[in-house]
Each structure stands twice: as C-alpha cells, then as structure tokens.
C-alpha cells in the first residue's frame, strides 16, 4: 500500500500498489511448468518403461528406434555414439517441445513466471533494459508456425497409437479388439493435444486469418471458425494437454514397471 510521500512511479522488482495475490499465477506457472520440464526431461532420458503391451508413451511416439513391436526402424542404431546417452525420445521430443516453447500462450506465461518480464500486470520488473521479441534471441519465436507443421503429424501418430491400444494379444497369440483403461488414457491424451494444437494462433492465421474477405472462401471460413472456437479456450487446452501428456506417460510407465495393473473394460 502506498504511503504519504511515496513516489508515484513504482519502478523496481515487485513494486506495485496491487492488493490482490498477483504473485499466485506466475508462481503456479513456475511450479507447474517447471515440474513438467523436470519430469519430461527425466522421463525422456530414461529410455526404458515407455511401452506396455500395445500401449506406447506419447513421449516416445513415434518410436523410430527402440523395442519391438512399436519401433519403426528397429533397435538402437549402430551408428549411435557409445559415449552419448541413448533414448528414443531424443529423436522426436524436440518437435512438440518446440511447439509448446514458441506457443503464443506459453510465451506470455513463462516470460512472467520465469523471467519476470513483467512478473504480473502493473508490477515492477527486475531489469531496466528490454528488447522483447524484436531482436535475438526472442525473435526466433516467430518460427512457431514451423513447429506447428512438425507438431500436427504427431496427432495422427498418437491417434494411431490409440487404435493400436485397442488390439490386445490373446492367449493364442492372435490380436483381439478390446478397451483397457490405458486405451482411454491414450485417447484422452489425443483429444487434449488435438484441442491444444488445433486451436493454435498460427493455425488460425494460416487457415483463414490472413484473409480480409473470408466470405469468398467458404471452406477456409469454416476452418477459421473451428480453429477460432478452440482458440478461445487455448489456455485451458494448453494446461490440460500438458497434464494429459505427462499423466499418460506416467500411466504407461507405472504399468510397465508393474506398479499398477491395467484394467480391461472390454
């Protein structure tokens, strides 16, 4: 609270006349996003327990090199340097990771939570200099649409994983249709990731936002309206899909480790 004689301008880290808990949102973002980064890094470097029967962790899908039957190109390649830690996730995880890193929503959130730029609205910052996204390194955030191009095929691959998750090996070795809790977990993950990726601001622009006269392009108008509809809840999709993908990996990992049992529904 300002006191008599206090300067009007509140320059300085954390200086503000706000009375609400302005620090709660950036702190929550810091803790949740930080925990996700730590867990993802740990899980992706394990190189183990990423598959359980017909289930495959989304952190490792598509599995380019790894355990059969999920691997596309066989086991660990012979050319992989012996001194370098091997994990199949290293081949692919940079693409969806880059998509989230350059996402317009996350940018605003982590600039506040991790860089205090600003810590919150109308709250003083720790630095006096500011370059924003107008120069290096943050000008590279403009590559977001390229990460979108890379992220969209992952949705197809993960949807295929759900399909694979519906075919369980029977006692005679033949595959039979079924649904387990894991199948539903994989499916929920695809829905959440789809809601997030298909509501992307760059996608909204590319499908129709770039046009000033959408009425002349009905298919693009429809696509624009659909993406805009998801985009209105982009923050919600961003967070739920973040939890979803981490929990899906955790579910497959715990099943694979024998900690929990996958219940069959059908």
């Amino acid at each position, binding site marked *: *609270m*300002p*006191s*008599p*004689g*206090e300067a*009007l*301008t*509140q*320059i300085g880290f954390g200086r*503000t*006349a*706000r*009375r*609400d808990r302005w620090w709660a949102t950036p702190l929550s973002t810091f803790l949740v996003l930080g925990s996700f980064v730590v867990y993802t890094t740990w899980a992706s470097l394990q190189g183990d327990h990423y598959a359980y029967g017909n289930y495959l962790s989304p952190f490792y899908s598509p599995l380019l090199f790894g355990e059969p039957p999920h691997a596309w190109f066989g086991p660990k390649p012979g050319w992989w340097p012996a001194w370098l830690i091997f994990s199949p996730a290293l081949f692919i995880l940079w693409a969806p990771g880059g998509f989230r890193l350059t996402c*317009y*929503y996350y*940018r*605003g959130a982590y*600039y*506040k939570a991790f860089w205090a*730029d*600003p810590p919150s*609205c*109308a709250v*003083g*910052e720790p630095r*006096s200099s*500011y*370059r*924003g*996204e*107008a*120069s290096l390194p*943050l*000008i590279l955030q*403009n*590559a*977001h*649409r390229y990460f979108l191009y890379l992220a969209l095929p992952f949705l197809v691959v993960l949807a295929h994983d759900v399909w694979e998750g519906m075919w369980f090996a029977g006692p005679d070795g033949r595959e039979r249709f079924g649904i387990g809790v894991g199948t539903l977990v994989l499916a929920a993950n695809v829905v959440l990731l789809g809601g997030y990726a298909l509501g992307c*601001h*760059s996608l*909204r*622009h590319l499908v129709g*936002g*770039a046009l*000033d*006269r*959408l*009425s002349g392009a009905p298919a693009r*108008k429809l696509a624009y309206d659909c993406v805009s509809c998801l*985009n*209105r809840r*982009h923050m919600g999709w961003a967070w739920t899909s973040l939890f979803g993908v981490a929990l899906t990996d955790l579910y497959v990992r715990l099943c694979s480790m024998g900690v929990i049992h996958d219940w069959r529904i059908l």
Partner: protein
Amino acid sequence: MKATFSIWRGDAQGGAFRDYPTEVSEGMVVLDAVHRIQSEQAGDLAVRWNCKAGKCGSCSAEINGLPRLMCMTRLSDLPLENPVTVAPMKAFPLLRDLVTDVSWNFAVKKRIKKFKPRPPDAPDGTWRMAQADIERVQEFRKCIECFLCQDVCHVLREHQLHDKFIGPRFFTYAAALEMHPLDTEDRVEELKEAQGIGFCNITKCCTRVCPEEINITDNAIIPLKERVVDRVYDPLTRLLRILRGS
C-alpha cells in the same frame, strides 16, 4: 458506512498520497466517492470524467494498483477495510492529481496509415460487404480510447519505449484497418519497423484491463504479428508470394 480513499495529490514536480475518509453507500462506484471527496473535502482535486457510464473513456486511473475506469469500479467489489488507492495512469506525463496528458496517443494515431478503400462496387459510389467479413473488425470498433491498455502495457509503463512502440490501443486500431474487407492499404512493414509490434511479449495485460472486453491480444496483436511473420520471417510464404507475383 465510512471508507478511506488514498488519492494521489500533486503534479509533475512531486506529490503524495493523501487519505480522505468519506461516507459511502450501496451502489456507489469509485468516481462517486471521488466526486463526494471533491465536493466536501478537496475542491481543488483534479479529475477527468464525462459520461459516468463507461463509454467516454475519460476517468481512467489506477485503483488499488490496477488500471481501471473509476466509473465502472463498484465499491462493493473492493476491500473497503483498507484505504482504496486512487492514482493517475503511470504511462503518461502527470498534469495534476488524477489527470494525465494522453496527447501522445493522439499523435501516434495520426501516424498510422488511414483507411484506403477499394473503388466503389456500385455506380452510386457505395460498397458491398459480407457481414462475415466485417464482424471481425467490429470488435475493435468498441474501443472507447480510455488508454488503460496503454497504461498497463509494461513496454510503455515500465520501459517507456514510447518512441519505438505504439501500444495495444493502436495495434487494435491498425488491426481494424488492416483486416477491413474494403481496405487496400499496407501497414505491415510499419507495424514491424516504426510501430514496434515485436516489442509485445504477449503478457495479455491489455486484454485483462480492457473495459470493453476487446480481446486485444488474441484477435488484434497476434494476428498482426502473424502477418508480419508472413511478410518478413517465413521463407515459405515469401517464396509463394514471389511465385504468385504479389
């Protein structure tokens, strides 16, 4: 019921917050309380106001540290057990008490390329537009120019980059022109260079404080940023443009 208002009193040379206890009642907004203080205790208190209905954009101030319209801030939404602070907008030069000089905004507006419609569609000099095309920019026309978005934007408020960055209000204005179905002017180069859209780091504070609930960040600034990416940063769209000869 009594409440205390801690109001900034002073000018560009200096000043201080001064406490004013006053009687408040149900239904009052902050501007009502400021008027009561002005009439009963501080006749020389400078405050800019006009419509008292959230439509003129005159009574912008910082209430308990957040930029808000005084006429749209109900006392029932504020904790009255502590003094309510009322300060002038910090992004603009202070004239006196709660009044700031917002003329910089009008100078910025003059620098933005004006509306340049295509030739009329009909012999009587009129145009035809589809409602679907004009809907997008109608949202931006709701702006009342209260400049709360400019005040809360840290690029102006904290870093004082007024000479390099036009602020969220004028990105909204530029978006209303740039996305207009009749407009033929090109503002993309200016948005990147002279108007500094790259300085925006998407805090969404402008959207949060907008009394007209314009989705400034998602519907105006980010689409303009994407148009800059099309023009400047994306080699694929640049190649396509060359191939199309546009």
